[in-house]
């Protein structure tokens, strides 16, 4: 457990030294979300209708932007080898890295989302549901993304390949995440969607580090 905390702290320290990377993803999120009204038109009722989907897709793409850096630097400078040889199970260290990735790329999106939601004229209640759905959904994106990032480590054209591998797996998160807000706006209640999202998160938290670890070992060989 100490090693888990140590790796989270190290990755946060590294992110703090390279703040620009965190902010790039955030700006990307803002810009993509702001492009939609410009492309579709500023009719308030329409914007309100598309808001959950647009914000979720934008968050998903922004979270994906930072994925290929999740293990690449560690792989390049040899830290990954040291992690694999550590007496601590590699899966635990990978979980730590995923958690740190979420703290630096997922959590900021959750916090920024309500501000962007205001651009789409969402009600305070919907903003709350949006935040909860992103809070449950973005860790899921980091977990699934870790598998893709590990698999494409050191592979030619890894960036594009990563999106091809990961985006189909993101669909359930997108459906339940955006669906939660829409269902609530339609007065159907978001509980079902959110609990399914939570179930997926639990499932991924259990399996994804394991799969990512197996993929990392292949990349190291």
């Amino acid at each position, binding site marked *: 457990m100490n090693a888990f905390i140590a790796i989270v702290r190290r990755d946060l320290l590294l992110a703090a030294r390279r703040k620009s990377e965190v902010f790039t993803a955030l700006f990307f999120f803002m810009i993509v979300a702001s492009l939609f009204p410009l492309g579709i038109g500023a009719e308030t009722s329409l914007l309100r209708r598309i808001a959950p989907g647009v914000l979720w897709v934008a968050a998903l793409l922004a979270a994906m932007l930072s994925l290929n850096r999740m293990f690449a630097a560690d792989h390049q400078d040899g830290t990954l080898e040291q992690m694999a040889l550590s007496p601590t199970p590699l899966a635990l260290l990978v979980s730590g890295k995923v958690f740190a990735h979420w703290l630096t790329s997922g959590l900021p999106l959750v916090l920024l989302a309500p501000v962007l939601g205001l651009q789409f004229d969402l009600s305070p209640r919907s903003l709350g549901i949006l935040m909860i759905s992103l809070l449950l959904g973005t860790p899921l994106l980091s977990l699934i993304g870790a*598998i893709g990032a590990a*698999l*494409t480590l050191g*592979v*030619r*054209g*890894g960036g594009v*390949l990563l999106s*091809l*591998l990961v*985006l*189909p*797996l993101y*669909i*359930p998160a997108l*459906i*339940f995440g955006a*669906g939660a807000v*829409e*269902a609530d706006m339609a007065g*159907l209640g978001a509980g079902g969607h959110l609990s*399914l999202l939570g179930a*997926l998160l639990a499932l991924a938290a259990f*399996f994804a580090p394991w*799969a990512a670890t*197996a*993929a990392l070992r*292949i990349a190291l*060989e």
Partner: protein
Amino acid sequence: MSQRLVNWFKFASPATFYPLAGKAWPWFAALGTAFAAVGLWISFFVAPTDFQQGEGYRIIFIHVPASWMSMFIYCVMALWAAIGITFNTRLSGMMSSALAPTGALFAFISLWTGALWGKPMWGAWWVWDARLTSELILLFLYLGYIALTAAIDDPRRADKAGAIVSLVGVVNVPIIYFSVKWWNTLHQGASVSMTKAPTMATTMLWGMLIMALAFWMYSIAIALYRVRAIILERERHATWVAELPEMQA
């Protein structure tokens, strides 16, 4: 018991499997052709005209079996992946990569025929119906597998990475299917479902089953043929390859 295990592993060695596959594929190809003939005969001459959808519903005889095959092949790939990971057999990775293009092709056929069915029935080439949407995502999963294994130069590394992708994918296929269905009901998507609309008469079911068998046999035959090529590519420096009768001048 251990004796039997050893025998299984013997078949898993490329040197044994290569001639075996060579002997087996023509049989499967012949079976496939026979089933296809019967299946086509049922689809066009036995099955009666549907009173709602007219003759257009006959597309179902390839659409549904192709969807079945695309999902089934993905599961078989994952099975090979699991075998490869547990027993570290070389053949399993080769089988997975031999199956992937065929699986992707069936996913494509399913989408294509779905679109051709949808145009006259729904009035649109593409409808975000739960089945078609999941089939599209399945095609993406296949393409992801193919792209990843193609991008890795070392074949054994490619096999292992592909095994992880297919296992992760097979866990996700039901989740994706369920989520798409959920999404579809929320958004009141297409109301005419392909399999629900015509009453599932027994002749129809038989036609679909026999066409599915035809596709199945075809898949086995083509996968065996392809795996032979893959074995030759990968084992080119092995002595048993040099001793094959077809390698003598």
